[in-house]
């Protein structure tokens, strides 16, 4: 029996798909584009393991810089929670103004929802619903924070003077880098690093610079359950908090968080062995956070 030519068959099959067309007005409408990107970002951030942060800001009538060194860090059911400044033990004195909940603009993964509303997947779904509703109301969504995006870590390091302890590429994987990307949000003091290798390893890092913050709480939520919480002390004596991210009974990744000299750092490792993650975290040099030039 003569074999059918794959090229002909594949082309025929592809041509059976309906023809896709796009209207020029739709593309050139920048506003539409921005809405699309924002909606896609929100959708992605509530459903995947990238840093979907819930920010809860405390503001006082008279803001005074607090010289705190690091945040309190906890592992909860769905992720990490940092509480910094005076937020953790905050108790307004008599006659003091009531702290206001200040909502950050939506976008960049920051969602201004009280933490108790963000519990598990149901919470994430509620968050998505809220975002969808917000997207329909431009006034409620507000403007996105300005971001700078770099295609490589190297380009980011060359262009920015932000102290950040990104593990060496070689330590993160020996496969071919399939994607890498760094997004900087200056207004929020946030840097997000994504890196993926062709052997399936994926690494995410998120750093928030909270120097001078009066007080805040932030959380990083993952799509599964946080289990097997543990500590790892690195070569310089800093203690990482680690946990496995489990979904449907399967460990899908290893997540780590630490607060160093007013920077809150989370790292997520997918496709890595425990021993590999431990080695990366153990040897990461934090001295850059203590250099005066920054």
């Amino acid at each position, binding site marked *: 029996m003569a074999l*059918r030519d794959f090229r002909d068959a594949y082309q025929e099959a592809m041509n059976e*798909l309906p023809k896709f067309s796009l209207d*020029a007005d739709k593309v050139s409408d920048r506003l539409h*584009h921005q809405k*699309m990107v924002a909606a896609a970002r929100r959708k992605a951030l509530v459903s995947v393991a990238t840093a979907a942060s819930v920010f809860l800001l405390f503001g006082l009538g008279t803001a005074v810089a607090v010289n705190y060194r690091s945040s309190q860090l906890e592992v909860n059911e769905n992720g990490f929670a940092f509480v910094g400044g005076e937020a953790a033990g905050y108790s307004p004195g008599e006659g003091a103004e009531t702290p206001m909940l200040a909502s950050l603009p939506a976008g960049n993964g920051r969602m201004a929802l009280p933490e108790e509303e963000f519990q598990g997947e149901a919470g994430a779904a509620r968050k998505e619903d809220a975002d969808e509703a917000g997207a329909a109301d431009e006034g409620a969504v507000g403007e996105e924070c300005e971001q700078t995006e770099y295609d490589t870590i190297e380009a980011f390091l060359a262009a920015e003077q932000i102290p950040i302890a990104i593990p060496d590429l070689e330590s993160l994987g020996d496969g071919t880098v399939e994607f890498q990307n760094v997004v900087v949000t200056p207004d929020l003091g946030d840097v997000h690093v994504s890196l993926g290798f062709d052997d*399936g390893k994926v690494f995410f890092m998120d750093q928030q610079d909270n120097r001078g913050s009066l007080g805040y709480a932030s959380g990083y939520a993952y799509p599964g359950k946080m289990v097997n919480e543990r500590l790892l002390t690195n070569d310089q004596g800093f203690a990482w908090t680690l946990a496995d991210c489990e979904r449907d009974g399967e460990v899908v*990744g290893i997540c780590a968080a630490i607060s160093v000299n007013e920077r809150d750092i989370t790292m997520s490792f997918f496709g890595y062995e425990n021993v590999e993650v431990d080695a990366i975290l153990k040897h990461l040099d934090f001295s850059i956070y203590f250099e005066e030039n920054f």
Partner: protein
Amino acid sequence: MEQSGRENQELQFKLDKYSDMLFKIAYMRLGNIQDAEDVVQETFFQYLKRKEAFENDEHEKAWLIKVTLNSCRKVWRSAWNRHRSDTDGEASEELRSEHIPQGLEESVILAEDSRLLLEAVRSLPPRYRDVIHLFYYEELSIKEIGAVTGRRESTVTSQLTRGRELLKKRLKEGYGFA
């Protein structure tokens, strides 16, 4: 106003020429119609922002494919999707069923052979899927595929070979690969 109208006409011409091609690339990469449409829109938005002229039509086409693939990676860097897709290099039943385009399945009657063929290609690991699609559907050369994917020609060749092997297995030797 007149200039804007002319620009829109020019853009529409490009959209008519390339959007379906880019959609199919994105769709085969992402397995999701909505994401693929978003990627094509994003690609043309980048096209609008581009200031440099293209050397020729081939350069323009290669650039559009490259941006489309890059945009797909951005969508695809979702760790969760990534993890599921690359768990063992073979698509799980769950993943395979998710990759069947629900909208198309309901609204379009694909011949059974075509459906099985597309499912087989979609079930390949992404790096092989791109290469197979670009080689057999877009009919790009190894060199051109290397240029748009940023991979070495030797890598493209080996991925094409490996992709064919996997397809042969999955299609039960029913097709000849030239």
